[in-house]
Structures are given as structure tokens and as C-alpha cells.
């Protein structure tokens, strides 16, 4: 979303600078007009090609985003270990169970 915003802002700034230039000769004016048209067209294509950011409705908050990334690695690792132990326990549990049944 932010990236899109910056790209649009860049283009808008360029358009504004072009419009503010002093009056020039007719040929140059046409060139400027074509460039403007290209920019508008480019902007339109850009909007259609780049899908709208999926999480537009709720603001996740930058701080919340970065904190997730920061602690996510650690919590993910802990979760993996937890699952690993759970699997071992389940495996041992099932061995024990089968033994019991065999007896």
C-alpha cells in the first residue's frame, strides 16, 4: 500500500512540475501534453495491474507489523519445538498403547 502510495506521489509531483513550467513554443507544448497523457495512461495501467492491497480495510499499524516480525521468528521456533515434542510423545504413547494391547 505504502509502496503504491509513493509511486503515485512521485508521478503526481512530476505532473505538477510539468504543469507549472512557463509557456513554451507550440511544439514543446504538444510534447508536454503527450508526456502528461502518457503519465495519466501509465497511472491508469499501474492501478489496474497492481492489485489493491488486500488488507486495506483494517489498519494493522506499523508498530504491530514490526513487532510480529520481531517476535514471530522466536515464537515460530518455539512452536516447532513444541510440535516436535508433541509428535515424539504421541509416537511413544502409541508404542506404549500397542504394547499394552499386545499384552
Amino acid at each position, binding site marked *: 500500500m*505504502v509502496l503504491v502510495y509513493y509511486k503515485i506521489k512521485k508521478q503526481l509531483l512530476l505532473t505538477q512540475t510539468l504543469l507549472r513550467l512557463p509557456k513554451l513554443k507550440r511544439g514543446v507544448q504538444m510534447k508536454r501534453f503527450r508526456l502528461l497523457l502518457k503519465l495519466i495512461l501509465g497511472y491508469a495501467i499501474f492501478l489496474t495491474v497492481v492489485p489493491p492491497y488486500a488488507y486495506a480495510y483494517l489498519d*494493522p499499524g*506499523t508498530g504491530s507489523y514490526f*513487532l510480529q516480525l520481531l517476535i514471530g521468528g522466536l*515464537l515460530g521456533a*518455539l512452536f516447532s519445538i513444541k510440535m516436535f515434542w508433541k509428535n515424539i510423545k504421541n509416537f511413544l504413547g502409541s508404542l506404549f498403547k500397542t504394547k499394552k494391547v499386545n499384552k
Partner: protein
Amino acid sequence: MKNGKVPSSFRDPAGFLFKEDGLIYRQINQPYQEDYEHLMKSGLYRALIDEELLVPHDEVEKDRAKSDKAYKIIKPQLIPFISYPYEWCFSQLKDAALLTLTIQKKALKFGMSLKDCSAYNVQFHNGKPIFIDTLSFQRYRSGTPWVAYRQFCQHFLAPLALKSLRDTRLNQLLKIYIDGPPLDLASSLLPFRSRLKFSLLSHIHLHAKSQERFANKPVKPRRAKMSRVALLGLIDNLEGAIKKMKWHPKKTEWGDYYQATNYDSHALGHKKELVEDFLEMITPRPRSVWDLGANTGLFSRIASKKGMRTLSLDIDPVSVEKNYLECCEKREPNILPLLFDLTNPSPSIGWENKERMSLLERGPADTALALALLHHLAISNNVPFSMLAPFFSKICNWLIIEYIPKSDSQVKRLLATREDIFTDYKKESFESEFGKFFDFHAQVDILNSSRTLYLMEKKPR
């Protein structure tokens, strides 16, 4: 129930709720089509319905559409009474939080994720919490962090931590902050020992610091990647933190009311019989009953056991907690305990003061029970009978009310430390004021006591 768009349903462009002829419908807008189809076809919807985690719905004809953006119209099952997180006790908020995380874990298994985590998306129905927002699911895109993480911390984790570690009354912050208490506020209110728990240290204290550090700084989503395992780890950690949270209620005035007051067993038994008889006398048979000042729900259960949908409202958090835990233990489907201060009931709040309904907007009930309540409103809160009668006529069609005279030990207790300025607190003035709004169907003196129980019906206007 007024026809038209539901005022609380406007934030999510994926769709909105509207009411028509007493039924509720949800319009799904075109941009949400693919997510909705994924929800229905991936098996997630079926899995959630089978486990009674999500409110079921039927797809109906599209001609009810309210705008040309409509992709589909669905009719979700109606929840008879909408309650809000600031009206829930500790365990209700905890159960709602755990339900939300269970749903998120299940959604991830089916390639979806919750795009919001509002506590208002959970309601209590048939004695259990249930998720009511069918449009909260979006397809999970690998590498993306959880967009609703901040909201989950604000709506659930912070209020629960505050209730559990600081003071249970702090859930009232949810009434002031409609999107949950800000994390920096929660962080400053929590005791130091909360920093010793890794989950609270990270999800609340560091989270608040991180928000402060990155305030108004843009995220570059392409650079920000979070693996699926990291996301599952985050959810698992939140779930573990919430499961560990406990609230040990301190003794309150009301927690052991029935034991402490040493109610005469004959009087109590007779009162129970009378309430039961009065409820049977009401025609048509009440579908909804509000027990006002219900304590732990002794009398609410007389109504709920008859299959009447009963709200058990009380001001005391300990009583509501005990009541809710009993409901869970006995799996009672018809009773919903809620925290309410009748002298200052929940107002309508949010956008245009319409997003969350006041108590009065959610009524009237078919029948209200006001047992051992009148003296608290009239004497402790100084409300004259002339103002009590119209209030009751607004919230119910039938009223079972107990009159407690000044000679009663409980009234004497209220007057022990103050001057008796209540010259109008007499049976005659009670009857004349309530007689202006109600027709009396029965009045019986309760055995072994000086109290009288009345059955009244609201006068037609």
C-alpha cells in the same frame, strides 16, 4: 426491530447487515466474492458450523440487495440478544478470545485468515460464545503477518490482562475505547509483574513501545515477510497466555448473598413458588425474561428452565462470574448472565451514537423480574417511585416486582448510616405510581417476611 441497514455494520467494504421484517440479512459485495467462495468451498464453513463456532446462514434470493454492488445475500441465524464486551465477566471475555483464536487456527488450515478480530464479532448464544461475522475471513497469503494482531491485543489480551492482574472493573475501558484500550494505556496500568511474563511483555509492553517507535512510519509490505510457522507460533503463544490467565475474585458484598443474608428458607421457598406461578400466569407465554439484579441467577433459572430466554443482569462482577461458570458447568442454553449497572445502563455508543445499542434499545423484554431490587434503586440511588414506574414500563411488558417495606432488615441496613429522607417510600405510593403504568394481576405477601410480590402488565397506550 427497525428495517434498514444495521448501524454497526459499515467498516468493512466486503458487505453489511440489514434488517427486514424482523429478520436479519447480510449483503456480500462483489469484491468479497472470491473470499466468500473460498470460505464455502474449502470446507472451512462446514468445519466451523459442525463445531458450532460460526453462526450458520442460508443463501437467499438476490432481489433483496440494497445496492448494485451486491454479489450475494445471505440470511444468518438471528442472535436474539446482542451483548457487548463491556457487559461480559472475566470468563466470558476469555472464552470469546479463545473462540477467536480457535477460529483463526482453523481458518489457517483451510488457507484463510481472520482479517479482523473485534470482540464485537463474538456473541453468546445457547450458553456458548459464537462468531457472528461471516465476512471476517480472507484468503491467507503466505509471508504476510496477521493483520488483526493489533486488534486482538486491544480487544482481548489487554482487557483480560487488566482484569486479571489489576482490577476486574477495568473492562469498562472497552466502553470508552470502542476499538479496545490503547496498548500504551494498558501497559501503564498493568503491574510490574506483568513484565515478567514473556507473552505480556511482548504482546502488550513491547507492542506499545513498537507502536510508539513506528508511529506514522510506513510499512514496506514487500520486505515484511512472516512465515506460516511464525504466524502459528504467534497464535499459539497468544492462546497459551490467555488460557493461563485467571481471575480470583475477592469477596464482594454480593458474591455469597444468599448464604450471607440467611434468608428464611420458608420465605425463599415461597418466593420461588410465587415467581414460578406468576410466570405461568403470563399470556402469551414470555419468550424473553430479564432478571434485573439477578445476583448469581437463582430466580433467573426458574424462567430459563421453562425454556424462556433469560438475561441474568447484575452489577456485581463476582456474581456474574459465578453465574456464568454455573451456566457453563451445567450447560444451560437459555440463560445469559451479563454485567449491568441499572442506575447507569450501557448507553448507545460509537459512530453517531448508533454503533452499539443502549440497554433500552435492546428491549423491551416480554417479562422483567425485579426481586429484592426496588429498595436499592429507590433508597441507595434516590430514584423516586414516580420515575421507577415509567422506567420499568419501557423495558418490559410484564413485571414481577417485589415490594420491600422500610421495616425489612435489608432496608433498615440501607438506612442505618443515613438520614431517612424517603417519606414517599410507602406501599400506597408504590401502588399508586406503578398503577399509572401497569395493571395489577396479582399481589401476594411472601410468607415469613414483610415483603409483597406483584404481577403487573403494562397498560396499553
